[in-house]
């Protein structure tokens, strides 16, 4: 080490690192950053939710208390969005977890070529939502969509189907797109988790007489539970909060068949300029997520111990 370094500011920092203030130093930057970019906006959101704030009616602005929350209770679209959000998130996560799991197990067998397959299977995750959305819009297009063409050719469908136009299929179609886009995330995390399971457990089970299915049931799945827990909660948060895929694919339609809370809040704020109500919607989403996360974490912890 150069003597120069001994006298520089680095040395002072080094000395600081041996004191009890070090922990504050370490946490300070990220805390400040998060407080600025998260805490203040969140507070702002809470405040706005109890105020009227409609850009096109500046005269009405002011404190309104729980008005928005009361209104929400009789807002048809809110309830539809809530239901759709639940379906959308639950179904997408279920499919993604399943596919991710299958992919991870297959990749973990390390057959020749696994590396290449690994990258190829990850590709969808690299695409921006916007691109993925448009791409699937083309694939499922009622006139130009190759999927329709394939289905018609193979006799599954008689004519091209407008997947996003039929409320019976629109939500399912968007879930398919989301699943395609999101499952590699799980595959990657699960693969990492699988590699951490000790080989001995499988050997013991083999000697005990458990076949591949039981081994999977009784060892693989339980051992991955921590990883699954973490991945699922991260994914749920980001799915609930980000409207971009649906914004691109359907804009919530047809009717409100694919309307979800995040999109509804977005539209309320930026199409109706009703920020107060959008704020209340956001608070409700936040609370729902909080409750979900708390229950979820508690539930998964309890079952582990």
């Amino acid at each position, binding site marked *: 080490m150069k003597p120069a370094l001994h006298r520089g500011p680095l040395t002072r920092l080094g000395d600081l690192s041996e004191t009890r203030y070090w922990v504050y130093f370490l946490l300070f930057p990220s805390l400040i950053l998060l407080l600025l970019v998260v805490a203040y906006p969140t507070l702002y959101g809470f405040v706005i939710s109890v105020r009227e704030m409609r850009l096109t009616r500046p005269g009405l602005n002011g404190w309104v208390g729980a008005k928005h929350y009361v209104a929400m209770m009789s807002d048809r679209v809110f309830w539809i969005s809530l239901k759709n959000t639940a379906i959308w998130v639950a179904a997408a996560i279920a499919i993604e977890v399943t596919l991710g799991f299958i992919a991870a197990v297959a990749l973990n067998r390390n057959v020749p070529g696994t590396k290449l397959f690994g990258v190829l299977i990850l590709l969808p995750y690299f695409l921006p939502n916007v691109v993925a959305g448009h791409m699937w819009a083309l694939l499922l297009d009622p006139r130009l969509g190759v999927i329709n063409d394939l289905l018609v050719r193979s006799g599954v469908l008689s004519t091209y189907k407008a997947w996003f136009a039929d409320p019976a299929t629109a939500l399912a179609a968007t879930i398919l797109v989301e699943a395609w886009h999101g499952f590699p995330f799980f595959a990657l995390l699960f693969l990492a988790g699988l590699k951490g399971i000790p080989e001995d457990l499988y*050997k*013991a089970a083999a*000697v*005990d*007489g458990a076949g591949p299915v039981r081994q999977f049931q*009784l*060892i693989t799945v*339980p051992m991955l539970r921590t990883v699954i827990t973490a991945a699922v909660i991260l994914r749920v948060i980001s799915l609930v909060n980000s409207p971009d895929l649906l914004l691109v694919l359907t804009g919530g339609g047809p009717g409100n068949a694919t309307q979800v809370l995040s999109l509804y809040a977005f539209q309320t704020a930026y199409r109706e300029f009703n920020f107060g109500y959008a704020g209340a919607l956001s608070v409700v989403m936040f609370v729902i997520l909080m409750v979900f996360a708390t229950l979820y974490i508690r539930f998964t912890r309890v079952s582990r*111990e």
Partner: protein
Amino acid sequence: MSIRDIQKSYGALKVLHGIDVDLEDGGFLVLLGPSGCGKSTLLNIIAGLDEPSSGDIAIGDRSVTALPPKDRNIAMVFQSYALYPTMSVERNIGFGLEMRGVPEQQRRAEVQKAAEMLQISHLLDRLPANLSGGQRQRVAMGRAIVRSPDLFLFDEPLSNLDAKLRVEMRTEIKRLHERLGTTIVYVTHDQIEAMTLATKVAVMKGGYVQQLADPRTIYERPANMFVAGFIGSPAMNFIRGKLISDDGGSRFESGGVIVPVSIPDSAAGSRDCVLGVRPEELKVVERDDAAIHGVIDVVEPTGPDTMVTALVGGHAIVARAEARFQGRRCDQVRFSIDAQSINLFDAETQDRIEMGVNPQRL
């Protein structure tokens, strides 16, 4: 159990070079050897977890070479215990029975019996994460016992335990074997375990069996220097020197050390050889005519004994002295050797040189 010419290669790497072992029913075979010598590989092959490249394995009198592990009726205990972390102790122990479709009622009874034998009945509801090392070890054994298999396999079951527990559990395993009478194959690199537990020890090195014999033979008449050095702690002392045979009989000479030996068929002449003598066979004596003179280097009281390391003509020699030994570093020290207990090895082949008995004590 019998193992016939088992070979195993991983790609170009040959890790087992034709292993042949026979073990009588109810016997306790210990596979002993340094890390990487192929012990676990052999055990896995016996268990059916690995396939041999060639060779044949029979348990009892049926060949099991082609059977999957679950059909071999074996039980195995792993170094890591490999307890299923998500299942209770009870379920862990009963898992093998569960897999074999034993009805719940009966399973419970069997698990209870095994648990009592191992004194872990009070732990049945816990998860493995909440057990201490020794308790986990017992659960792993319980899992093996409950199945009443034809053959137990142990892969270094004690090496994750601390010194104290290891001694206790070792006795436990020995007791278990005597009680159950099941054939056992046991892998370890701890020679004390091998000595205390085995009815038969296979000392392995680099994929070959160096010696297959009962523990006492292995200890007292090791087949070569590797076995001699590997067995015993502190290790056998080796002194390089010459074996001189002439009219007056044969004797070993090295520096000031002279030990008369009796070689049944010795041509006159001298050849390079190595004298091996175990620390406990070196007695500290006051007599001036003792076989070995040296200077104390290190004195290590272990409690019941004191280990004395002395420098003798460049060699470091370890002797086991009494607990009350009072010597200190740099003191002069003299040892006598019980000529009956020495071993001689060919310096080149490192193999043991067969000797007759010479009852004279120096």
